[in-house]
């Protein structure tokens, strides 16, 4: 659709995936997930209901915690965080996430920062959304080199959370923990199944003709470009400015 930016599609998709959550936590440098959460909140409030509480880690504005950096994990352990986002240097077809590095651990040839809280949050947050804009065989691999956090656990292992979806710059996958594996749910505008196949290092299920990712309606887009971008600018000024610049280039 002319007039909708690819990142706006991502933001609106995230808002849909979060529908119904009471409290969503977002990482410090995650403007798109934060925008999705803010959009959902704006939509709920426009509809006269209460939107989700949004905790943005490392933000002063959206920091509702007062017990140090352990509180996020405590809060998740108490069942008070319904949704969280995870990226990953590698994500494989079983939903395993690698945030540590490639090659032979510990002497990784490429070292990423590390696992952060993933090895815990992936187990206890009911809706973990895997989000990575880069959709390449380098990122979406058959098998991760290091499991920071596993997509599924054996029977008998305490697990109240896990992945529900994988969102990339090309499409949206749903995670089926019973198989386990991903099902391509929709393809973003401008991309197609063949391209996604080529760009994905793991096998996934899909319909013969996957549908296109739903686009936001006018009202949603107005909320996004109005209130949400304003809110976003408080915490992610550079990202919000970039979005405004990008909007100037499309027929919005």
């Amino acid at each position, binding site marked *: 659709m002319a007039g909708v930016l690819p990142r706006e599609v991502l933001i609106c998709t995230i808002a849909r995936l979060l529908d119904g959550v009471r409290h969503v936590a977002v990482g410090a440098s995650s403007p798109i997930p934060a925008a999705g959460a803010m959009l959902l909140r704006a939509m709920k409030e426009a509809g006269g209901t209460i939107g989700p509480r949004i905790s943005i880690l490392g933000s002063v504005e959206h920091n509702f915690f007062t017990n140090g950096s352990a509180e996020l994990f405590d809060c998740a352990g108490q069942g008070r965080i319904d949704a969280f986002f995870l990226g990953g240097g590698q994500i494989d077809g079983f939903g395993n996430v690698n945030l540590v590095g490639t090659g032979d651990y510990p002497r990784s040839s490429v070292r990423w920062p590390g*696992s952060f809280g993933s090895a815990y949050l992936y187990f206890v947050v009911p809706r973990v959304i895997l989000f990575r804009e880069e959709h390449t065989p380098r990122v979406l691999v058959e098998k991760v080199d290091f499991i920071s956090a596993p997509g599924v656990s054996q029977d008998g292992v305490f697990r109240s959370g896990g992945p529900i979806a994988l969102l990339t710059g090309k499409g949206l996958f749903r995670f089926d923990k019973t198989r386990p594996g991903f099902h391509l749910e929709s393809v973003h505008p401008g991309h197609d199944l063949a391209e996604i196949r080529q760009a994905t290092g793991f096998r996934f299920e899909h319909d013969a003709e996957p549908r296109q990712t739903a686009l936001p309606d006018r009202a949603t887009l107005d909320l996004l470009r109005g209130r949400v971008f304003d809110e976003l600018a408080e915490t992610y000024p550079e990202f919000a400015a970039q979005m405004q610049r990008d909007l100037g280039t499309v027929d919005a």
Partner: protein
Amino acid sequence: MLSEPRAMAKHIEPGMRVALPVDYAGVSMAMTRPIIEHGAGDLDLVCVPTGGLQVDQLVGAGLVRTVETSAVSLGEAGGAPRFNAAVKEGAVRLKDATCPAIHAGLMAAQKGSPFMPLRGLIGTDLLRHRDDWRVVDNPLADGGDPIVLIPAIKPDVAIFHVPMADRFGNVWIGRRRELAAMAYASRTVLVTVERIVEENLLADELSAAGVLPALYVTAVARAPQGAWPYGLWGEYPADGAEIARYAKAARTADGFSAYMAEAQMEPA
């Protein structure tokens, strides 16, 4: 109890376990060069729960034997160059963790307990590489229910930076309670502050709520802008340009040395 950074660095002895806070909690960058000058090596760093600039510089200076952490990075400025190079060379031993495991280990020390249980972790390669973590069947369940026990982390030294302390050694940590957790768990606690205030911070309930009492504090030194180029909550933002300048310089060992040799140790 009032000291200055170079004198405080002398508390650090070779082979000690040193706890350092996450970049936004109050990193005592003012201590970094004094520690490097002091030169005690074979340090076992514990990042609470992640590390950045300070860890990278201590690694770059060759003082570090192991790094226990949930992550090391320079945030927006990218990967930690000296840390990543040391990992590739096998020059530091890694104890990769996850944030709540670090918190659990400190909490065990705070409580005087040998361990704390932690959910999650089972099936990760983190667990597979940690021979100090133990999986047991939950003794309170009817059978099965494996759970990981994290042993107490008892640092020899904890080092951090906060806005203020009073003349009695009470240190105001605000809502950054991981700093208290580090202090409770550690034998020696070294704190740099923006300013020393005259009033007793424990005398007023409002300020007392954010105080780490002197009971846990070994020494305090005044170091204005002491977190720079990191920011300090409620005081000043991070200097992203300076962190990026470091990230670029430290891509090579020589560049790192040149950067660290610069006379400038204060914000411009």
